């Protein structure tokens, strides 16, 4: 169907404007290293993401070539180019790097660059957090790289299955560093997710409703929602794993009932949405490219969006199809087989919409279209071969074989293919240069040939067991064909890099809109766009994209017109042409990234409660101390820094009208924290079920100290409310006194908890005493960590209040802190009965 009644905000005509002056005067020039260390501009951050992801593509690709070299012939341990342990590391890190450090960040690069342009925003809602997200990503990548040089990197497969993941089986410090890298990556994703969700919901141009949002932005919005919730579960899993490795808790110990199944639940609760997290941005880019190069609006646009929403929701109820070979019961396997079949239905609809869009259009086979079409073909193969794995009986046969390897490479690398299409599509916009079309088409021919030579034979050699380099001799031919295909695919990537690299230097200048029939807003501004993106305020209220001058925007806002649709402030925001200075530079995100690396490397040395002896131990302890101090310093400096960002709020904000950006960001963050704590609590409940619910007794002998702590936290929540009331009454003393009481009550909570722990330790109940003790210490310890963080913020607020802040009508900070503190209170309301009473 067509949606002719809809304003064609992404399906209209993008009229290119004359090139703007590139006013980067708040930033060092592009050739300066300093610019890339301090920039917070979304386009710069996008380029940083893309360049870094490309590096990890090459890194992961080299590991893949080593794997294929080892698989040239069936091997006995100790033969071939890699030792057995080196092969295990190569296989594990190839998977981890490609999934975490290449594909998703590559998509994040495009999203950073393109999404604000598509929605009519000058930048993301929180530019410094955007830079922080990148620097944490880079920090995590440095950690994974460093892990190879700290004994041994992780070598137990990219899924980090238990109990192989604990020190008894994987004792190297480097393996802990790898797990740390994933923790930091999860932090990066969470920070980025909060930012994008706030931006896309709150900073759209007037008239750009959710229904008329460009498909790439739609796909990215759903991606970041999935990321926010799925990565919180992964964060819980890897934090627990770190605790097992560093502190000696016993969640995943071989002797813990249900421990290994617990890992698979936590991992795959993240892992299956991750498939769509990887593929959705590619799908969105493919949809944009199909529209542009067929000259036809996507067929059934509304249903395409509905299907994406359905897939995003359903992705959270299919994870157990990865666990059909574990000891979970048949009923639940059957249920998840049904949900797995169910998720293929909306995907079918999207595939048919893409195909029918082409059938109805006049296709131009430029390089982006070739890659996008190739991605669709490859994805269809990957999707069909995945249906076999969703059926319980067939899965018994295929799981653990190269069928799975072939299937998920067709799915995941088809996503990468879609992103290569996006790279060629948006290259002129991002660089202001055109690429070599002949080389582009040649690279596609080589790419498509290499891809299928590499992965299709693996279906035919499906009887090969995964993760090992020994296989039956009759598969030698297929494996050799695959290895040759790997080299050809590698050459294709080199061709792509050569083409684009050469074009940046010697390519012709690109027009603002080099693609006929492109319709989204990024093509309506110069290539590359100016620092604040637009020559005026973008507006879609007429049904087409227009750029209004500030006086028109202010008038519309003052009239209560469509420019102020969130019912909020009618004041003109900082932006083009007005006098308000908007910042684009901060060094602190990079500093936090640096000290994160130092801290993580230092703490990696902590193995089951102790550092190594001698100088090595001193190195790790020193790095830990230095890193933590650096983190505290740089985080505080970032908090003090005066930084003005675009506020947004003059355009569309459904469904969060009236919720200002920072408050919304806090709520979104808390939603991810709900999943984080939920996964910790869920893990404790799961292990208790596995242990025998009624045989499991609380670790503390007496619930009364816990009750006292409940009183303390409830009272501290009340005093935070009183601080807000005092701020509204403009009472400085009231604010300081209330916050001071909050601080003391929080300290009381910690002191009470410390006494409880000391008593338990003195009785011989340590973290490793039993799985009951492990869950008690770790879950309540995580909560204590939140209390400590809250108290540090409280101390800062008291200092600010003492100096007159919050009583001048600007009490929002108190309210945002309250949201966090009350959440910490709510979590305790569940932890207390679970660990002290029942």
């Amino acid at each position, binding site marked *: 169907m067509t949606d002719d009644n809809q304003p064609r905000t992404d399906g209209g005509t993008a009229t290119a404007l004359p090139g703007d002056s590139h006013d980067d005067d708040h930033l060092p020039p592009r050739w300066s290293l300093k610019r890339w260390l301090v920039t917070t501009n979304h386009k710069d951050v996008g380029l940083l993401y893309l360049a870094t992801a490309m590096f990890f593509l090459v890194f992961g690709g080299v590991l893949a070539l080593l794997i294929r070299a080892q698989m040239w012939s069936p091997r006995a341990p100790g033969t071939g180019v890699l030792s057995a342990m080196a092969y295990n590391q190569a296989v594990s890190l190839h998977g981890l790097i490609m999934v975490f450090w290449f594909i998703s960040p590559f998509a994040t690069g495009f999203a950073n660059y393109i999404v604000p342009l598509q929605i009519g925003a000058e930048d993301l809602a929180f530019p410094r957090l955007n830079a922080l997200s990148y620097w944490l990503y880079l920090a995590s990548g440095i950690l994974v790289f460093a892990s190879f040089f700290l004994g041994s990197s992780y070598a137990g497969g990219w899924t980090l299955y238990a109990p192989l993941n604990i020190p008894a089986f994987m004792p190297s410090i480097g393996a802990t560093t790898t797990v740390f890298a994933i923790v930091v990556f999860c932090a990066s994703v969470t920070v980025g997710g909060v930012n994008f969700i706030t931006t896309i919901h709150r900073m759209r141009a007037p008239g750009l409703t959710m229904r008329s949002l460009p498909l790439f932005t739609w796909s990215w919005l759903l991606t970041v929602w999935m990321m926010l919730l799925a990565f919180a579960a992964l964060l819980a899993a890897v934090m627990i794993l770190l605790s097992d490795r560093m502190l000696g808790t016993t969640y995943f110990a071989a002797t813990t009932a249900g421990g290994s199944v617990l890992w698979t639940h936590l991992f795959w609760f993240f892992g299956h949405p991750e498939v769509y997290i990887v593929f959705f941005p590619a799908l969105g880019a493919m949809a944009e490219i199909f529209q542009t190069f067929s000259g036809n609006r996507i067929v059934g646009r509304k249903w395409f969006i509905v299907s994406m929403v359905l897939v995003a929701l359903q992705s959270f109820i299919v994870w157990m199809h990865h666990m059909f070979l574990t000891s979970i019961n048949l009923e639940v396997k059957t249920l998840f087989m049904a949900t797995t079949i169910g998720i293929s239905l909306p995907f079918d609809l999207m595939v048919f919409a893409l195909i029918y869009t082409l059938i109805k259009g006049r296709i131009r086979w430029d390089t982006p279209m070739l890659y996008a079409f190739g991605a669709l073909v490859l994805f269809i193969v990957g999707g069909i071969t995945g249906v076999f794995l969703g059926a319980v009986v067939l899965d018994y046969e295929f799981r653990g074989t190269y069928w799975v390897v072939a299937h998920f490479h067709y799915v995941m690398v088809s996503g990468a293919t879609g992103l290569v299409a996006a790279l060629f599509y948006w290259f002129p916009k991002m660089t202001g240069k055109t690429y070599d079309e002949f080389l582009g088409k040649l690279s596609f021919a080589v790419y498509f040939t290499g891809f299928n030579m590499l992965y299709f034979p693996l279906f035919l050699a499906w009887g090969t067991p995964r993760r090992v380099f020994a296989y039956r001799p009759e598969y030698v031919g297929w494996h050799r064909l695959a290895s040759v295909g790997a080299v050809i695919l590698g050459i294709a990537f080199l061709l792509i890099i050569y083409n684009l690299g050469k074009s940046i230097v010697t390519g012709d200048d690109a027009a603002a809109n080099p693609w006929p029939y492109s319709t989204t807003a990024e093509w309506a501004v110069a290539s590359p766009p100016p620092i604040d993106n637009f020559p005026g305020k973008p507006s879609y209220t007429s049904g087409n994209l227009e750029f209004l001058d500030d006086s028109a925007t202010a008038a519309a806002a003052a009239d209560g017109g469509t420019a102020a649709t969130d019912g909020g402030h009618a004041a003109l925001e900082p932006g083009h042409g007005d006098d308000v200075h908007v910042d684009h530079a901060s060094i602190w995100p990079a500093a936090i990234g640096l000290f994160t690396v130092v801290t993580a490397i230092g703490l990696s040395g902590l193995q089951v409660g102790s550092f190594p002896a001698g100088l090595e131990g001193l190195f790790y302890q020193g790095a830990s101390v230095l890193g933590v101090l650096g983190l505290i310093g740089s985080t505080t400096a970032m908090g003090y820094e005066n930084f003005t960002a675009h506020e947004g709020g003059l355009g569309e904000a459904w469904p969060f009208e009236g919720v200002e950006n920072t408050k919304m960001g806090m709520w979104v963050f808390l939603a991810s924290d709900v*999943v984080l704590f939920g996964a910790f609590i*869920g893990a404790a409940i799961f292990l208790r079920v596995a242990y025998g619910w009624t045989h499991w007794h609380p670790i503390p002998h007496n619930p009364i100290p816990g009750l006292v702590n409940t009183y303390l936290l409830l009272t501290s929540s009340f005093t935070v409310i009183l601080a807000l009331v005092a701020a509204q009454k403009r009472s400085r003393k009231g604010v300081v006194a209330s916050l001071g009481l909050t601080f003391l009550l929080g300290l009381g909570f910690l002191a009470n908890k410390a006494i409880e722990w000391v008593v338990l330790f003195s009785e011989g109940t340590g973290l490793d005493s039993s799985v009951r003790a492990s869950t008690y210490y770790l879950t309540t310890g995580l909560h204590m960590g939140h209390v400590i963080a809250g108290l540090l913020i409280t101390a800062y607020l008291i200092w600010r209040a003492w100096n007159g802040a919050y009583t001048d009508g600007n009490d929002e900070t108190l309210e945002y802190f309250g949201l966090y503190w009350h959440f910490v209170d*709510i979590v305790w309301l569940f932890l207390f009965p679970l660990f002290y009473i029942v």
Partner: protein
Amino acid sequence: MARTKLYTGIYVALFVIATLQVGVEQIGLLESSYMLALGLITVFSLIKAVVVAGYFQHLVWEPRSVTYVLLLGFVGFLALTVAASYSIL
């Protein structure tokens, strides 16, 4: 501030419910009727959490979409915990 009394009343109610929660254990209901006691304790926790979120975090005065955002996380937690625990029964 007009809402100070409301906040105070809620604080007192939370205090009482927390006490009742431990009271369930202290009177020996866990020993005599475990499932009933477990149900009561869970309901008390849920009531407290809803009241804190609703009034102390001002959710009742925010757009309903904010509540849905939090519920999304909570439903995720429930789905993971219930389905995972059921899978090993």
